[in-house]
């Protein structure tokens, strides 16, 4: 029996039975609901004009986060509350919401096309971070592009709104609670199927029964297959409704992250590994994308430029793959066989990832490099972990993204370093070995030379940062 999709739109119940499961939330809003305040600027999650807020029930309370409606499929809303810019005045009792008022007062809109998206991002920010720093504000806007204003008035508006107004998003979870399911959701329109299982076992069963099905987690990759590559996806299995896959556990000093955990949810625990990890995560896409995009999806897509891989590989992460037949565990780097090919057998899915804790004698840093600080795909992403015995390197794990067809360890460099003293001379010599490990390519993000030279320099930066604590290295924040 096919189900309908039930969710709340701006406080009102909606039930959808006849729209393709790959209809995006944005298309739905603009063409079905005629709510045209939410705009399309790119249809790929990169401009933020389509930003909306989604409320999800977690442990009895509603958690709100911003997402890009242009790449989110409608059925994902099942059991959630979708809030669009049109609802803010309603929440504020008929007048402008404090964020909207501050935007007017600060002259934060010119052409106005980006504006609803900025408003939603800021409302989302203030809901979760009532007293944001300038950096928090910029983080929340990393995925919102404005071509007119030069942003200054928008940053001002954000600070003012934070000081002024308290209009909260609805906290009454009753209606949402009534929409929660405890059984599998099956939705089908004209042969296109969408399943949302509730347990990992159910998922294992579905994956076996539907070998051609596509797993859908945050959809920040899969969404683009539809909106950019215009593919017709016939069967989708959504992992986001499975509680087990949302777990983050710390056991035996290891950090276990469920495959459906979003980068936002994992942020704090991962950032605890090192300050550089926090910066990497800050530079990982945008707030909206991190709110949707999962750690599992980042690994599973097999991209050579996924930012999660270098640090996780360097830290020695293991991947747990599960199927109806059972569970197997592999080293994360072994998952990537070649471009577009991963070690995932039919019927298997990623269940979780296990990241060893960082021992006191491990030097660890990770760096991302791209044309723009915010929301940009890496030209090069790197991570270094040295296990030290005094000044001697006992062992090394070094991984790079953007340097080969898959995320890959720098085995020659690692070998050279092992057993040597961690000195300026050693690192300079080691930099040369990168050329044996990688033959990077040229594309629109970077030339092969830049990739190689900057990769070498990042290794050198790792040396300076771990050996010369006084040296200024950061162009953002205090060092300037």
């Amino acid at each position, binding site marked *: 029996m096919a189900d309908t999709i039930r969710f709340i739109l701006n406080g009102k119940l909606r039930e959808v039975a006849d729209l393709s499961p790959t209809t995006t939330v944005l298309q739905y809003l603009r063409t079905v609901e005629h709510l045209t305040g939410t705009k399309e600027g790119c249809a790929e999650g990169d401009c933020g004009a389509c930003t909306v807020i989604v409320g999800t029930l977690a442990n009895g309370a509603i958690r709100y986060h911003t997402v890009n409606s242009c790449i989110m499929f409608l059925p994902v809303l099942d059991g959630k509350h979708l809030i669009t810019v049109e609802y803010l005045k309603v929440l504020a009792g008929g007048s402008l919401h404090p964020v909207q008022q501050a935007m*007017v007062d600060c002259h934060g809109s010119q*052409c106005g096309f980006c504006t609803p998206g900025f408003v939603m991002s800021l409302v989302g920010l203030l809901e979760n971070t009532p007293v944001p720093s300038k950096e928090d504000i910029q983080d929340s806007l990393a995925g919102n592009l404005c071509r007119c204003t030069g942003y200054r008035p928008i940053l001002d508006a954000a600070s003012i709104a934070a000081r002024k107004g308290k209009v909260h998003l609805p906290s009454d979870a009753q209606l949402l609670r009534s929409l929660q399911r405890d059984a599998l959701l099956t939705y089908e329109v004209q042969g296109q199927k969408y399943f949302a299982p509730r347990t990992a076992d159910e998922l294992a069963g579905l994956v076996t029964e539907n070998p051609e099905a596509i797993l859908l987690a945050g959809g920040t990759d899969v969404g683009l297959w539809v909106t950019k590559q215009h593919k017709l996806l016939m069967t989708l299995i959504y992992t986001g409704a499975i509680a087990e896959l949302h777990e983050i556990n710390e056991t035996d000093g290891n950090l276990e992250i469920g495959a459906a955990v979003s980068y936002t949810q994992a942020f704090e625990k991962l950032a605890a590994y090192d300050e550089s990890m926090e910066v990497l995560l800050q530079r990982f896409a945008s707030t909206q994308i991190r709110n949707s995009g999962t750690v599992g999806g980042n690994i599973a897509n097999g991209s050579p430029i996924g930012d999660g891989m270098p640090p996780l590989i360097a830290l020695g992460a293991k991947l747990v793959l599960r199927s109806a037949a059972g569970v197997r565990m592999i080293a994360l780097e072994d998952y990537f066989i070649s471009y577009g090919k991963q070690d995932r057998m039919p019927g298997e899915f990623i269940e979780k990832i296990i990241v060893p804790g960082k021992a006191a004698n491990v030097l660890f840093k990770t760096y991302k490099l791209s044309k723009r600080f915010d929301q940009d795909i890496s030209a090069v992403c790197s991570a270094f972990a040295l296990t030290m015995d005094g000044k001697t390197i006992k062992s090394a794990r070094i991984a790079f993204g953007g340097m080969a067809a898959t995320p890959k360890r720098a085995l020659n460099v690692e070998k050279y370093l092992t057993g040597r003293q961690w000195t300026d001379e050693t690192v300079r010599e080691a930099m040369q070995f990168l050329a044996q490990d990688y033959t990077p390519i040229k594309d629109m993000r970077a030339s092969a030379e830049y990739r190689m030279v900057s990769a070498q320099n990042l290794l050198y*930066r790792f040396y300076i940062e771990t050996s010369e604590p006084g040296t200024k290295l950061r*162009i953002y924040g205090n060092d300037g």
Partner: protein
Amino acid sequence: MTDKTVIKGGVGEAIPHDSATLHVSGEAVYTDDIREPQGCLHAYVLQSSYAHARIRKIDISECYSDGVHAVITAADIPGINDVAPVFSGDPVFAEDEVFYAGQAVLAVAATTRELARKAAHKAVIEYEELPALLNVRDAIKAQSFVGETCTMQIGDSTAGIEKAAHRLQGELEIGGQDHFYLEGQIAMATPQESGDMHCWSSTQHPSEVQHLIARVLGLSDHAVTVDVRRMGGAFGGKESQASLIACIAALLASKTGSPVKLRLDRDDDMTLTGKRHPFHAAWKVGFDEQGRIEGIEIDLAANCGMSADLSNAVVDRAMFHSDNAYYLGNARITAYRCKTNMVSHTAFRGFGGPQGLLVIENIIDEIARYLGKDPLAVRKINLYDAAGALENRCTTHYGMTVEDNILPDILARLEATGEYARRIEDIRTFNDRNRILKKGIALTPVKFGISFTLKMLNQAGALIHVYKDGSIHLNHGGTEMGQGLHTKVAQVVAAEFNVDISRVKITATSTGKVPNTSATAASSGSDLNGKAAQAAARIIKERLVDFAARHFDVEKDAIRFEKEGVRIGSQLVNFAELVSHAYENRVSLSSTGYYRTPKLHWDKEAAKGRPFFYFAYGAAISEVIIDTLTGEYNILRTDILHDVGNSLNPAIDIGQIEGGFVQGTGWLTSEELYWDEKGVLKTHAPSTYKIPTSRDIPDDFRVALFDRENQENTVYRSKAVGEPPLMLSVSVFLAIKDAIAATGKGPIVLNAPATPEEVLRAITKARSAS
């Protein structure tokens, strides 16, 4: 006289954009938000995948299926297959040959966009690939040009360079820029009775869209009406480029008899439509011990793409701005308008000016580095003479006299408030103490000529109705793209009648209301339309005064429009009341207004004249920090002092300055257009094309208006502000260069855009000789 301060929303008041509350609440209606008429079809454009190829065959037989209403190619155009704005050569659809990768070949109208897309991709097109010209070097070698190579000259440049104590020469590559308006190109055309056409178009130039729709459909202009309420950004990208989109929608609407909407996906938008021209510059300069220029020769080569479009005027403007703020003395500026197999590059905020200006600013920088002087000192010594100090050093290389150079004052003030000298010292200390991070600073001026360089475009019209209840309907030929034009013009009208701005309703620009308009471009929107609207208001006012004098039997000069109402002799009459009386007594309450810019003349043969009514000035200091390991950078602080004459609306003007500066900074830093070796654009979406985000603006950003009225008689003595501030971003580029110079003694070669990769390359080179 109008009192500036008393009414709400009068001239000079920093009121919000007229649509601000609609923007923030999502209620502002853009073209895609207009409720679609019943039966509206959706269009999709199929584009060429080759940069240059012969079309052997187009087979559309597979395209049709249920829901597909029309598939059209060049053969289906009833009128003329050309949407070129000035010259010819911009076909709607390719005929026998495609001239760039991305060119439109055919279009489909279907019940949904998805269906139209699928149908279009079923067309079978046989191409025979031909050799393609993809850069200016090859184009010059092949003598492939879209327009004449021309020269602007003053004095004897060769002799000047020869006899100078010092000589330098160099080259500079300057990348293009995508407009990246947040609202992509869009139009919705609806057929009317007797073959007429109505079109909602996101365009800066409704009259041209009207004319071109008529041309492709074989109609008269009067059969076509084009409306635009607002655009979600344009920046020049919807000046000539919007026509193609509107014409395709109109062609399909005409063919199917149904309304048709064409909204381009971001990727299609970026591959189909033109961008800022990439330039290559080669230069030679001779100068004295102080760095004063004695002779200069600049060769500019603009990559115009496959057709002329607006390139002639764009390249002219690059030449006009090759002096920026400096007296060149003996100069020869030559420009090549290269025809390549790329999208036809087009208008973009600054319109060639930024490229010309960057070249000369970079030359000044080179001179200073060569002489080991502070670049600011070299700038100052080369400035045009200040207003009042009229010696010889005030004639441009195109023969116009710079009459009101206020830059010496602007620079002096900015140098002080921006703590230039102290920061130079601080930076030196910082650079001595830090081996990985380096800082740099630069102060650069802007002098930008205001007017369309094609004289006939400098005219405008407006239409004002005053209704019986005293409410005012305002319409003018300018379009609103976010720049606040409608707000400013409404402020002018409110001030004229001395009524609150809430009385003035700003309405969609329509070719049916104000005809034969020029594009809203060249920063001239408020100069032209403000004056035209003022003229219309004055006509109505005069009629009201005539009427009131008769009706109340008072002298005309006893009638004044005051904030509280109209003072008529000893009485005070409410504005609405007066209007109502006037109506009852059969006084016309509607008028057009017209304006043309005075003083302009241009002798094309001699390349001499006065192409600009006046200049707008400004200057910026930027300080940056670079990471010498990766080439990444951050702007630590920018101070701007900019001249807008008497500001019509300081909030809007500051918004233009900040927005322009940040957009220019994007052009010179992270915005890299990347075409592959086949001439296919690979950076066609925000995932790969990186405009600045809120983190990329200066950490410390200080913007002030230079308070001095325009010496020319513009509307309220204001100055245009749309384009000039973009070029303040040159300070960022040269600050990055300054930081690179702190890394080594070798040559400092930095091309634009200065991506981290480009910066690291420059650092490597700078270090090569140390």
